[in-house]
């Protein structure tokens, strides 16, 4: 196992969304693949710029919804026809129109739960500690500054070359992120 790099990555700070997106595009084009960016609000172009095109949230929600739908209907079918059949005014045991509402509600419930917990799980949250929080200026990432990081695990990463490359992008500041 390789020794752990004491440096987690190099963090460059930018003033505007346009600058950080521009910088992210250039960094990605320069061959750095293990990069990430941080912003106080969602910027659609930014995830594209760092080369993150597909997230699997919708797929997770679809699976959750299908499971919820099947659970809802099959549960009612089993209860009403097999486990606990009750004759209500001569209606058939499998009176499917009455089962639609609970099926619908459970579809929504399972989809919602999978959307929220699926999103958190894919994001690796909760995770209260993260190396980027060690950089004092990173506090501004939730206010009005935009950050770009090149992780030291990137094969092209080299402390001096990468720093020189990032300086070429004209950031406000560059910080080393200790891991």
């Amino acid at each position: 196992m390789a020794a752990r790099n004491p440096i987690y990555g190099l963090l460059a700070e930018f003033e505007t969304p346009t600058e950080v997106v521009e910088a992210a595009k250039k960094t990605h084009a320069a061959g750095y693949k293990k990069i990430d960016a941080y912003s106080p609000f969602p910027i659609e172009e930014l995830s594209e710029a760092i080369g993150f095109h597909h997230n699997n949230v919708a797929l997770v929600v679809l699976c959750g919804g299908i499971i919820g739908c099947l659970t809802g209907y099959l549960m009612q079918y089993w209860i009403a026809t097999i486990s606990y059949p009750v004759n209500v005014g001569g209606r058939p045991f499998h009176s499917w129109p009455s089962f639609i509402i609970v099926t619908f509600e459970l579809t929504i419930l399972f989809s919602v739960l999978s959307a929220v917990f699926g999103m958190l799980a894919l994001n690796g949250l909760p995770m209260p500690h993260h190396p980027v929080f060690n950089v004092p200026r990173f506090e501004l990432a939730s206010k009005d500054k935009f950050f770009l990081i090149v992780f030291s695990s990137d094969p092209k990463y080299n402390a001096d070359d990468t720093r020189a490359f990032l300086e070429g992008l004209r950031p406000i500041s560059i910080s080393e992120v200790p891991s």
Partner: protein
Amino acid sequence: MTPVEQLELEEKVSRAPVMEPGHSFATISDKISSVVLTRPLSIGWLLGLSVAGAFVMVLTTAICYLFLKGVGIWGINIPIGWGFAIVNFVWWIGIGHAGTLISAILLLLRQSWRNSINRFAEAMTLFAVACAGMFPLLHMGRPWLAYWMFPYPNTMNYWPQFRSPLVWDVFAVSTYATTSLLFWFVGLIPDLGTLRDRAKNIWIKRAYGLLAMGWRGSARHWSRYETAYLLLAGLATPLVLSVHTVVSFDFAVGIVPGWHTTIFPPYFVAGAIYSGFAMVLILAIPIRKIYGLEDFITERHLENSAKVMLATGLIVAYGYVIEMFMGWYSGNRYDSFLLWNRLHGPYSFFYDMLWMCNIFIPQLLWIRKFRRNPVLLFMVSAVVLVGMWLERFIIVVVSLQRDFLNSSWGMYYPTRWDWAVFLGTLGFFTFCMFLFLRLLPSISMFEMSTLLPESKVKE
């Protein structure tokens, strides 16, 4: 149309803006987070919290006495088995609907003006659903057996009856409560991260840090977050419409005159949104004044909310007119009698007041000057809330009061315990709102930031 283009267009057509000019990313988060982090405790807030807290005490006392004595302490009887408990349940859950409408439906319709009122409207939904949820439980008589409503394997070899609307309601309301809570919390996560980064006190920092779960605004996280948030909105939209539909089935599936009608689902949903927007205005008007948030909750928001009230109020009016028409046109003697009983029976005063509060007075909102007058809007909203409460009272009580047989007629008089529980939930709702305003950002900071022109990437 992007939000920026929309802002520019609004300047051209001289509507009130969604946000006053002169703000930047920093001033938005400064202004909104300062309410939570740096504003000193004020006497007014403490006083409001104490008064609301006193009503929470009333609620707990009333509930304790109810558990001790049973539902006989209320005014319910045979034939009127559904008294205040169900009236209040329907009223509260209706109020909740505006929060989901604002946060989900208006998000899907790209109505970016919603960004400043969705957070507290969602909080309002959550607290209103909590109040609503109490009533069916308390009404059960043996609330400690409430879990019997859920399907679970048990030694009694029994399962819920899925052909009953009351079981549908259990699923609809519990799904709605869960969804509202999660939608609200997901919306809060990035702002909790902002509060964590801005708090000076280490314990406050840790508390918000714990809730923010380590949110750091990574572009990958934002991408998944946005997808999840949009999907949640898409899921909440049919859900919110289904909830009051299912509540209306509780009535419409029964055969009692005044309940057994197919117009109930749409007219209940419209009524829910109507009362919900009235509550949004009741909360927004004082909050923007007291916390100096007029830059974010502008006249535009008040005016739009008033327009939604006017539109849904007219749908409700249509429902009332159709009910009356059908009472006459059906030729059914029980339906005609119901209409007569509403107009001339012992509760006719409340029926007249219902028309006054829900239909006639809100027509003032046709006039633009009134829609932009916060004081008048506040009063109209209060009138609508009373009116919508009366509507549920008429539906529940007057329908049950005189049904098919004269021998089973009766009267309903609420007791002091009915009032204690109702006022208690009003106190509980207010208490939660007071805490929410000081502990969490009442306007979404990151969504407000996206309204600024400089948040867009220039080519």
